[in-house]
């Protein structure tokens, strides 16, 4: 499996990563190489194998519906890049 430069741009956009034009050929090559490595998987017939999402065969534990958290927004927002009136600010979102 080999990617094109266009594929690289699409994936970078999907993952919201800015990548300079100069770096695209390198990514194209490296990502294609990794996909080449991964390609070995296709040689194995897995039609009867159930996918394994977790290493342990456990089921979800449930928490009691109790409020345990208190307000710490000042502490949490101390580390935020841009806050005003307790709101996180981002460039205007157009819906």
């Amino acid at each position, binding site marked *: 499996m080999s990617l094109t430069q266009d594929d690289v741009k699409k994936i970078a956009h999907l993952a919201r*990563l800015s990548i300079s034009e100069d770096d695209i050929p390198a990514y194209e090559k490296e990502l294609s190489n990794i996909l080449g490595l*991964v390609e*070995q*998987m296709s040689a194995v017939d*897995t039609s009867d194998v159930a996918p394994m999402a977790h290493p342990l065969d456990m089921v979800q534990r449930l928490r009691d519906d109790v409020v345990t958290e208190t307000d710490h927004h000042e502490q949490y927002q101390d580390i935020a890049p841009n806050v005003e009136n307790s709101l996180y600010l981002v460039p205007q*979102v157009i819906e």
Partner: protein
Amino acid sequence: MHNKTLSELSAALQAGEFSSTELTQSYLDRISSLDPQINAFVTVTQQLALDTAAAADKRIAAGTAAPLTGIPLAQKDIFCTEGVKTTCGSKMLDNFISPYDATVIENFNAAGAVMLGKTNMDEFAMGSSNETSYYGPVKNPWDINKVPGGSSGGSAAAVAARLAPASTGTDTGGSIRQPASLCGITGLKPTYGRVSRYGMIAFASSLDQAGPMTRTAEDAAMMLNCMAGFDERDSTSAQRDVPDYTANLNDSLQGLTIGLPKEYFGEGLDAQVGSAVEAAIREYENLGAVVKEISLPNTHLAVPTYYVVAPAECSSNLSRFDGVRFGYRCDDPADLEDLYKRSRGEGFGAEVKRRIMIGAYALSAGYYDAYYIKAQQLRRLISDDFKRAFEEVDVIMGPTAPEPAFGLGEKSDDPITMYLSDIYTIAANLAGLPGMSVPAGFVNNMPVGLQIIGNYFDESRLLNVAHRYQQVTDWHARTPEQFK
């Protein structure tokens, strides 16, 4: 002081031979004079360490000390530590002061252990050489021109250079065991779910597991006693009692069945490393163990499978780093899209971006079945290999890494070659099994590790098996010349 093991330090503190404050200060001094050579620490928490040590001294005096009270430790910079910078080796989190403590950190705090600082690591734990860190590479204390392994390279180097008696690491595909092997220390990756992942910055959630990095197996047992346990904040945490991991260290190995997977001794393994591992196996035979050749036929699929599962999970896990609520934000974003793309593009390094992109691709429409589902199916096959093997053997042994530490820069331009460094360690993560690396000799003056893989939740046996070996060998006790 710095040549003592945890159990020796613990006994000395209780006996009043020296105080935690003295001990802590001596390690802080070593860090300040020696760490510039190896770059193992991102942050040294000097004042916090001394304050904690003073509190520990009171606790020791009051007679309420736990085994780790007053013991200085180095924490991998992947664990969130309240009020202390937690970088995960990334520019993205260079300004991140965590507002909360990871469960592992809470456990150590409750035990009265002293945090010396946060150790360097591959960025977001993605790497096998510690060269992807934003804070520069860590150097191997045995040869500062060589890599310490990764991603817990700082933690491994710190223990090897005696800058800390023990440290913590995390292991997603070998990140505890491989650097332990390359730095000549003992490292244990517990069973998935044994140690809480809460507050440990996620790389690949279904693979990540924290564990101790120490000089000896006995020290690892003491550390694991503190780290392991059920945590209600982690849905994947195992609801199982924690045994005393130091209790069975001295059990006899008479009749222990060791499985040697033939796939771990084939092409790709450095011949001298192979010899060192075989010598270690003979030592086990001397201790009464029985050796049996086994097969893990899907071993060759572990690396390809891992490089779908881990990137897929990481591509999603790392989406939260978006420059909005914490972490790096680019200057003057033109609009929202620009804010996202440049904050992430500038905040993440090349290897992290590669893995995010591979993961996003593997999960995207049209490729999900061929990559992600396929990898999950292979994951089951790899896991089933081990299930069958453990019907016949008690532990599995082999090399931890295919070769000793390689040169800085030697593989950093070639991701694929780098990925193959973890060829023997990845399968245990895919299956969720516990694995250890134990010092087992030297090749060209660089340490070699023996890997021991156990059955689920069989950490006690792994530690016992490692400990008995360390009773008859002294590889683990050796110290690099400059750090004696």
